[in-house]
């Protein structure tokens, strides 16, 4: 899955500094359809010159759905990746889509699915907001668009590996 960069302004990256870490999941296309909620969306801050970083969150769909794409004006190429461990070798590879079973929280974190922002337009600083557009398809083929604002946490923030 690959997206061409949109030439959008990323001033929001630097100007919007939310105190909250919880997120807004908001604009829906379509009508009376399934809804997906987003919690705890965050991105890892970078050092100057670091061209990629990850974004993390928990998604919950109220009906069986599939996350089919993620886009962001913050990076040239935004992809869904999955970390897998084989022996002691960690691989992080792109996946085309992620199933969101009804009512089941799907955690995007360092150890599983995560959003890769590759070719960052600018440094992501702690507190910056990284806008993400998630496209989710339900079993009927209807698409839902979720606008997510991932707030950047420090590069050295621990992952919530053992939290769930």
């Amino acid at each position: 899955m690959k997206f061409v960069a949109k030439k959008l302004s990323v001033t929001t990256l630097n100007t919007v500094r939310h105190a909250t870490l919880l997120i807004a999941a908001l604009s829906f296309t379509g009508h009376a359809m399934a809804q997906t909620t987003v919690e705890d969306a965050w991105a890892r801050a970078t050092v100057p010159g670091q061209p990629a970083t990850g974004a993390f969150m928990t998604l919950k769909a109220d009906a069986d759905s599939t996350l089919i794409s993620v886009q962001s004006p913050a990076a040239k190429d935004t992809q869904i990746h999955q970390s897998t461990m084989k022996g002691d070798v960690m691989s992080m590879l792109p996946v085309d889509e992620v199933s969101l079973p009804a009512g089941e929280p799907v955690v995007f974190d360092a150890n599983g699915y995560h959003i890769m922002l590759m070719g960052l337009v600018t440094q992501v600083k702690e507190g910056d907001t990284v806008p993400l557009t998630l496209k989710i398809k339900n079993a009927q083929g209807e698409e839902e668009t979720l606008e997510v604002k991932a707030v950047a946490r420090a590069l050295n923030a621990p992952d919530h590996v053992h939290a769930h």
Partner: protein
Amino acid sequence: MNDFPTRRRVLAGMGILGLGALAGCGDSNKLSFKHGKDLSNEILGRTFRLKDPQGNEKTLSSFRGMMPMVFFGFTQCPAVCPTTLARAVQAKKLMGRDGDRLQVIFITLDPERDTPEVLDAYVKLFDPTFVALRGTLEQTAEVAKEFKVFFEKVPVGDTYTISHTSTSYVFDSRGVLRLGLSHSLTAQECAEDLLTVMEVC
């Protein structure tokens, strides 16, 4: 080191192994770790020669007297690299004053994209005492081989990611490889095993 003898207290529960280790910190002492893997009988990573971001050549003996913990990664790694470095920061804190002797060394597997500047800023953000090392592509491949570290570039769109061994390798203060810490261990578990290494040498 002046305070060296006081560090030779035998850890409760180490029993005979601990006493054996007291006899001298030789290479063949097997250690009993609660969480990590004993690598005392493995000969890995002894002869690496890489540069720090300031251009100084570093070898294992550059860190003599410290307890080096070597980890391989790349700064564009979203997951295991920052979490392993963050875990090292926590483990170091949990070790109290002994943590001052832990020398975290991050060796990049991606010298093409990890410039000295990016690398330095990256590791120092975790802890100003952490050191990043970098070689040419050939040197990187050699060092990885010496540690039996697997790494592989995987093309992704018009860029690439790197699959790699996620183990941290711990040497004692005389440069003897002792311990392998897997990615799945917590900071507390790492700290306990690191203190065990420290008790011995």
